[in-house]
């Protein structure tokens, strides 16, 4: 008899086997077994893509736009992006050689890491952070080096933290501000201090700026506009959050020509191009979507005020997030881990929030609540959370 299945060696490579599944995925599977859940676990806008943007895509389909585009993406769209980045974020890029349209920022991040980091290279990034950073760095064979941020720095990264993490192997610094899951934003002065450090140590920055348009209290700052940074930054941005276009899967990367060319090669051989209908929609968003983004930003800002106020009233202290659409309250005061707190909240009140540990070990004691959902849902979720915390409190004292 031939060997049983369990005795057979695995077909999967050891380095893939060793990459853990996303903590979010894990939590999703628990939530998806339940009905009538109020979910504050959703990392995408609750708005439907504005009508004129959808219409641009339908119109393109009507006119037979069903083919590949250039690998870099539609030139018209790249030109529009060059104008958008120059006007809004103070960095200029040549649309022919320095801008690449990708399948969301997720693809762009993978391309960026693979283009500039490999075995033996350290990539610095800040935690708590988006779930894909460490795995994507590992896919490239590079070494992910997390830097821990916490409430004491308002979850901001500082030049000092980076300086103490730099080693001779450090090649790349990965930034994500405004940050998922904390909503932290870096002030211009800190970005400039980081920029000086990056220049001094001859590093490259990958800046994931997908939430940059959801900056509520001050100007939107891109590190690419800091002195000396344009030629050592890969700027990543997209349309998913700003124009509620997650399902269109369209993002972009701006980088100096040599780096962009390397990213383009991977994109060319693996993805070919972003879907043409999504690129057409993105072009319409850039041309005529300013009122939509302003409207959505003001709605998010009001919900942010509301949920921040309620969480603090309930006794779950949280900072006022300056960007993105998440709050990150402290839930560690009840003798429960973040995961235990989230699971009991789900079990007892049917409210889903992602435990902070899904975003790095230093997320212990915290929970991510997304306010990219209807205000009525937020109100009801807060009511249930208040009841839940009310039950925990006597036990904790």
């Amino acid at each position, binding site marked *: 008899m031939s060997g049983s299945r369990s005795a057979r060696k695995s077909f999967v490579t050891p380095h893939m086997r060793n990459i853990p599944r*996303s903590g*979010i995925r894990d*939590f*999703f599977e628990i*939530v*998806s077994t339940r009905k009538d*859940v109020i*979910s504050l*676990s*959703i*990392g*995408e806008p*609750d708005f*439907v893509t504005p009508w004129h943007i959808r219409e641009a895509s339908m119109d393109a389909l009507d006119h037979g736009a069903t083919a590949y585009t250039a690998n870099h993406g539609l030139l018209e769209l790249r030109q529009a992006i060059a104008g958008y980045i120059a006007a809004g974020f103070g960095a200029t890029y040549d649309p022919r050689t320095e801008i690449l349209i990708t399948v969301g920022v997720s693809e762009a991040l993978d391309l960026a890491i693979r283009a500039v980091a490999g075995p033996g290279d350290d990539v610095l990034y800040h935690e708590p952070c*988006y*779930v*894909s950073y460490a795995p994507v760095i590992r896919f490239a064979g590079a070494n992910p080096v997390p830097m821990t941020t916490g409430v004491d720095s308002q979850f901001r990264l500082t030049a000092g933290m980076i300086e103490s993490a730099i080693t001779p192997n450090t090649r790349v610094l990965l930034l994500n501000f405004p940050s*998922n899951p904390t909503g932290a934003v870096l002030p211009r002065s800190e970005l400039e201090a980081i920029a000086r450090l990056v220049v001094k140590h001859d590093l490259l920055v990958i800046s994931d700026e997908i939430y940059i348009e959801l900056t509520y209290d001050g100007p939107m700052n891109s590190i690419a506009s800091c002195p000396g940074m344009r030629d050592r930054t890969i700027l990543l941005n997209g349309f998913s959050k700003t124009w509620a276009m997650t399902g269109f899967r369209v993002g972009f990367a701006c980088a100096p020509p040599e780096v962009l060319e390397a990213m383009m090669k991977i994109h060319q051989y693996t993805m070919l191009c972003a879907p043409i209908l999504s690129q057409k929609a993105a072009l319409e968003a850039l041309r005529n979507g300013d009122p939509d983004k302003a409207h959505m930003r*003001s709605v998010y800002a*009001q*919900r942010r*005020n*509301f949920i921040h*106020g*309620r969480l603090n009233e309930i006794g779950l202290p949280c900072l006022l997030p300056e960007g993105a659409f998440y709050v990150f309250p402290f839930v560690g005061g009840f003798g429960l881990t973040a995961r235990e707190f989230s699971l009991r909240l789900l079990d007892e009140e049917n409210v*889903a929030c*992602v435990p902070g540990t899904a975003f790095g070990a230093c997320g212990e004691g915290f929970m991510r609540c997304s306010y990219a959902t209807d*205000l009525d849902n937020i*109100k009801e979720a807060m009511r249930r959370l208040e009841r839940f915390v009310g039950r925990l409190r006597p036990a904790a004292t």
Partner: protein
Amino acid sequence: MDELLKLLRQNALESPENLARLLNQPVEEIRARIARYEADGIIRGYQAIVNEDRLDLNRVRAVIEIKVTPEREGGFDKVANRISRFPEVESMFLMSGGYDLLVFVRGQTLQDVAGFVSERLATIHGVVSTATHFMLKTYKDQGVLMFTEPTHERIQVSP
């Protein structure tokens, strides 16, 4: 328009406490501002937006274009004020273009509205002509869609 008015236009039932949280202002301040808007006549009332097509009221709504001769003193206002007082008239506007007044009216039956136009409107001194259009179906009213958009389920947890 200020944010408080925008929020009230979206949902006039929102509590002052919640408005205060949304706008990050003290609740007393919100109450005072609403009172001021009411006193100044900026807020003129609070109504539910009802989809009457769903109620089987068998009521008729019409839009009437009216041409009038402006009066030497008071221009259009005099005749407009007179017309606007009829309880049948729901909304009314002075317009540029091919006619002068646009009037939204409501009646129990088609005959009702026809009678209102021929016997009461057309006979007013200064009214030169009328053109009546009956409404067949409401798709959107006061910024609110009267049909429910299909919702696309979002996944419950996403990164």
